[in-house]
């Protein structure tokens, strides 16, 4: 079976610093794949390359067997490849509801001509999107702040909004960049429950960068360990936690 995401021989350097060095990873369809690694291992850079926010120096990214390396981030979005941001991004001057309503792909309203020529159709779609946005807000538990400007939400709420954004469209793969960071324990339980449900019920594939090992342990299989821009190992959480090389990579500087 072709992996849903296939990253082949990616290299990326910034100035003289090589961040990703001939790195290849695969994410199989329907999995919740974890990605861990010490700071500076290149996780976020690889993420940005997969999502299309950064162009690699060489190498290829394939989505469902098709090369998407040349596509822009918004074109990848329309192929069902979504991402969240490590530091929650929001349209701070729009309300939570409007934030979600911004998302759905290929809406008629975004085509200049249909806006003028078929206002009825646009209105019908707008109502549909609104209904879905309200459902999603309910799902992630943000209904009570739907008319609040997103800029005024708490850090944890912004993270929930990020997850909600990925639910506005029929995503295939969602890249979650440290979704747990800054979210309190209760909210985190909800968040993980939601991720599992999306995976089980809607068939979302997730690729998760996370520092919270509890969350990785509960959600992810397999887990990929990245170090110095390369894959160090891949396996189940149990295998990884017992691997001396991984422990060395994480704590090497302190034990040396």
């Amino acid at each position, binding site marked *: 079976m072709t992996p849903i995401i296939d990253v082949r021989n990616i290299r990326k350097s910034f100035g003289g610093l090589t961040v990703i060095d001939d790195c290849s990873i695969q994410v199989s369809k329907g999995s919740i794949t974890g990605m861990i690694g010490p700071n500076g291992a290149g996780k976020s850079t690889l993420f940005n390359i997969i*999502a299309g926010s950064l162009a690699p120096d060489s190498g290829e990214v394939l989505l469902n067997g098709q090369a998407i390396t040349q596509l822009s981030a918004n074109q990848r979005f329309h192929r069902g490849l979504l991402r969240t941001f490590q530091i929650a991004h929001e349209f701070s001057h729009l309300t939570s509801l409007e934030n979600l309503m911004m998302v759905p792909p290929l809406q008629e309203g975004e085509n200049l001509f249909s806006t003028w020529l078929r206002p009825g159709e646009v209105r019908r779609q707008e109502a549909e999107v609104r209904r879905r946005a309200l459902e999603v807000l309910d799902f992630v538990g943000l209904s009570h702040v739907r008319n609040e400007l997103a800029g005024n939400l708490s850090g944890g709420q912004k993270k929930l909004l990020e997850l909600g954004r990925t639910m506005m469209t029929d995503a295939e793969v969602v890249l979650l960049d440290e979704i747990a960071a800054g979210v309190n324990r209760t909210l985190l339980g909800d968040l993980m429950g939601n991720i599992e449900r999306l995976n089980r019920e809607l068939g979302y594939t997730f690729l998760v960068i996370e520092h919270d090992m509890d969350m990785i342990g509960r959600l992810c299989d397999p887990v990929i360990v990245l170090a110095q821009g390369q894959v160090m190992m891949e396996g189940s959480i149990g295998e990884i936690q017992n691997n001396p090389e991984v422990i060395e990579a994480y704590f090497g500087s302190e034990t040396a």
Partner: protein
Amino acid sequence: MNELIYFFNYVVVAGSVTGCIYAIGAVGVTLIYSILRFAHFAHADMMTLGTLAVLLLTLAFPHAGDPLGLPTAIVMLPVAMAFTSLVAVGIDRAFYQPLRSHGVKPIVMVIASLGVTLMLQGLIRLFAGTGSQNLYVDARKEIFRIDVPGVTRPIILTEPQVILFVITIVAVVGLHLFLTRARLGKAMRAMSDNPDLARASGINTRLIITLTWVIAGSLATIAGTLLSLDVAFKPDLSFFLLLPIFAAAIVGGVGHPYGAIAGGFLVGFAETLAVFNWSVLLRPLRDSLPTWLELPSNLALVGTEYKIVVPFFILVAVLIWRPTGIFKGKVI
């Protein structure tokens, strides 16, 4: 009462005219800034370019406006707006887009826009010469005199001024509805708020950038044409407005269209009030003044030739009071 009418004609009307022009110009500058994050210095010459298009079309079809009872220049305005929008998008693709894709710093974009402005100035003079030309070809500017009972002096409005007020209101209301109601307008606000997220939300940022140039080009054409209708077409007319327009955009809060409108009117009225001869208003009191106090014939705060300092005085004053402008700037 005559003095009040004089005040109305020379301050309220003149200030509104300047304010409208500055406001429309500043909205264009501020929209470009909010989406593309650089100060577009070629904006004034885009205004002139739009006006030139109107002038050439008017010269080609001098009587096109007659059946509608409007000046031909106004009838030609939509065509010129479309043309200028196309040129603006073309300039972006040819000069700014390659720089953007290299991820250059905003200052490089600003310098590029200075280059574009010099290029446009040359091109415009190539076609229009350096002299001034009336946009009323084969027609006369209508002047409305409104008599106020009991006063000898009438309120004077010219046809282009009335058209200017109407078009400004339509443009501002239209822009407001577009930004708050239309999906594409909201996408535009979203992109000015957070471009990374906009892309990650599947918003077509190229389309938004194109649209920004279309709006900016159209507004520039409107501002340039209405100004030239009121005065006359001169290749450097709009260029001299560049600095006050930027002052207006900054005073209002950079990147904030409503701020740009407020800033435009603030700067426009400040300029007009500063050069207004206040001794006219004091003249009726002349007889009751003590004999040793002689009323000077000119009591303007600054001479007309120093008008250009006024926007900058306002700019500094407002920025000390509110460093981000009247409206909090940076995003739409």
